[in-house]
């Protein structure tokens, strides 16, 4: 039992250290605060995959009563520790992503045109900004064929993660 307790304590310490490091990366002025607009990026850089709506909820928990535009470290740490320990907002595995991409390919062509993927990503779900769309296209579009070979894209991205 003592071992278990020790290992869970050290796990928490580990998790908290990871959160601290991730927070520090975005703490541009080294004063233990980050811009509220970067919280989403920090949460995701820690491996979580929340939707914008879920992020919004998280922010409500940790924002000050009078929103200052900044989030303080203590509040972020407390919330994020729970999120990571409870393994909330886990990312979907590669095959699920592939299925999602296939769903967008309504004509079952085996690939998606730039227009198609742009249409879906910028009008459905939680739409991309033009910058996000451009970034995604720059990596997703096969330079020779001019379309998104989503099978290759999904596996390339999955490989990145390791």
């Amino acid at each position: 039992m003592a071992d278990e307790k020790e290992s869970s304590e050290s796990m928490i310490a580990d998790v908290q250290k990871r959160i601290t490091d991730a927070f520090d990366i975005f703490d541009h002025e080294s004063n233990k605060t980050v811009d509220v607009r970067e919280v989403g990026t920090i949460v995701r850089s820690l491996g979580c995959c929340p939707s914008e709506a879920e992020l919004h909820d998280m922010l409500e928990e940790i924002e000050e009563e009078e929103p200052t535009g900044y989030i303080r470290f203590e509040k972020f740490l407390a919330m994020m520790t729970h999120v990571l320990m409870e393994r909330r907002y886990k990312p979907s595995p590669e095959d699920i992503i592939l299925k999602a991409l296939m769903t967008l390919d309504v004509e079952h062509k085996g690939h998606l045109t730039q227009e198609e993927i742009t249409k879906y990503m910028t009008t459905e779900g939680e739409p991309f900004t033009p910058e996000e769309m451009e970034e995604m296209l720059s990596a997703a579009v096969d330079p020779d064929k001019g379309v998104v070979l989503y099978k290759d894209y999904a596996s390339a991205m999955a490989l990145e993660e390791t």
Partner: protein
Amino acid sequence: MGCGPSKSGESDMGKSEKLMKAALLIQKWYRRYSARLEARRISAWKIYQSIEYAGEQDQLKLYNFFNNMLAFLPPDQNSNQHLSSVITARFTAGAVTRTESEQELLKHTDYTTIRVTSSYKGPRLTFPLSRYQLTTLVEGFKRGKTLHARFLLELLHNTRQLLKTKANVNVVNLNITKQLTICGDLHGKIDDLFTIFYKNGLPGPDNPYIFNGDFVDRGNHSVEVAALLFACLLLFPNDVHINRGNHEDSVMNMRYGFMKEVLNKYKDHGTKVFTLFEEVFSWLPLATMIDKKIFVVHGGISDNTTLFSLETLDRHKYISVLKPPYQIEGGNSEANDSGKPKMSEIIEWKQVLDILWSDPKTQLGCSPNSFRGGGCYFGADVTDKFLRSNNLKLIIRSHECKRDGYEYTHYKQVLTIFSASNYYEEGSNKGAYIKLGQDHKPEFVQYMTTKASRGRNISIRQRVGIIEASAIRNLKERIFASGLELKQEFQKFDPENTGRLHVMDWCCAMENVLHMELPWRTLREKLVDVDADGKVIVTTMFDFCQIHCNFTTAQEGPSLTETLYRNKDSLGTIFRIIDKDNSGSISMQEFEDACDILSRHIGHEISKEQVVDLARCLDINKDGQIDFNEFLEAFRLVDQRPRTDEELVSLSLTSMSDKEADLLSRSSGSTVNII
């Protein structure tokens, strides 16, 4: 709700919901991926900044060390006397207080006797300059020509004459000029200047510009950038305004590449050119005031900055802002000057130092800028007080590289503008310039200059990979150079010498030794391996590469090589200071002196026998002279592991830029060194 074909209606609804869910899933997944890239990019960025400022800090430490040496060495010891005279000779050659007369300066930098042969195919200038000549200058530089020493010297003389007529603080009135362009640091990156001129047009009466300092050092075309700016200034003296930066300073130039570039490009005339540049820099105005509302200065302010003082001081006496303007006791043969500085002199000197070196920070108040080693950190309260008491609305400054080329801070009362894109590495940051109209609302134009040959469309992922690989490589160099110290620190956490450390202890040790404030835990996986228990395996940090030096002798231990490698930049600066005639060669005695000075500076014994041995070995021609540039370039960090794809791309980009660099300028020591 009508009762249409219900079955297909349902499946339509189901289908569109499926699409929405699929889209959402992909968006979430992509945003996570993107966030991780962003975190990696910022980490790489922090590494670069850390390394850059560590270099500057070291330079200032070295400089303070020299000052102290001159002021405090007991004169009776033989060796001290000798070293002191070596350094004094160099520092007073430039005449700290410019007691040298005008005629003497003109004689030393005379160009009229320099012949231009018909074999010279570069731009030719006659004075006064014409617009046509400016365009031939631009064209010539675009084609990679070097301006002949004769024309450059004449250009510099004319520039000096003009600058002498200018006040310390330039004045711009937007009611007259209607609009204005403000550029930040260029650091010898002529491609960025070409981009700016291409997008925004050459300067002219309806196209005024302010250049906010730091146009030399680091990049490979500092001479050309400076020449172009000065040519514009001569052509349009009322429409081009140049502020001095902290790199328009001979002491900085000795370390950061401008001096080397000048000496390489101009060989025999190098000393003349460099001396005249030094003189011209000291005449550059310190700031520009727009409509009495916007203050443009290179670094920033301190809580002591007084406009009246800035406007009235004699800026010319600060040849190098790092050299106090007063005489150092025993350092000069001028017997009538007393050695002790007056308080007023120090206060004034600090004013100039502060406006060229300071950085804005979130912390309130004003504190010494320890990161850089000079100037101060000033908070929003200092800015606010300064703006209020002078009835101003904005400070525009440069001095710090920003990812987007510009950045507001202090509740939009301070605006940083930085014009050198890809400053740390290909893809590291955009450059930008400000367009300012009569409404005083800054607008920004951003760009990222890539050479045509490298213009291939690379994705964000690849770009981050390249930046990261390069940053890590640079970081590893620094780690490696501090090997001995790190090993000693690790021992404190590992008294039984198991060679294993807890990750937390390892992070602690790294920060204790390197002082770089980096996210060590996140970087760990790129720097060192862990064992099955998750503990750091110390040897894996150092066994990946070796310092390779072409000149190792049998007796020389690894520690001498490591010490010299680690302090390569300081050693280079010391060499350049000792090399009075700027020939690139020093005698064996001078080489030993340099190593002696270095050992005192770092507070660490360097074995005299080993140095003498090395000196003999370096004197290949047996003519008693050592080519120190060759010596410094002989040190390279040789990576023994197989390279990742990203590292290969990054290295190929670096070596491409070297090839494209001026044929006459030699590349710096290791190809991975960006400092």
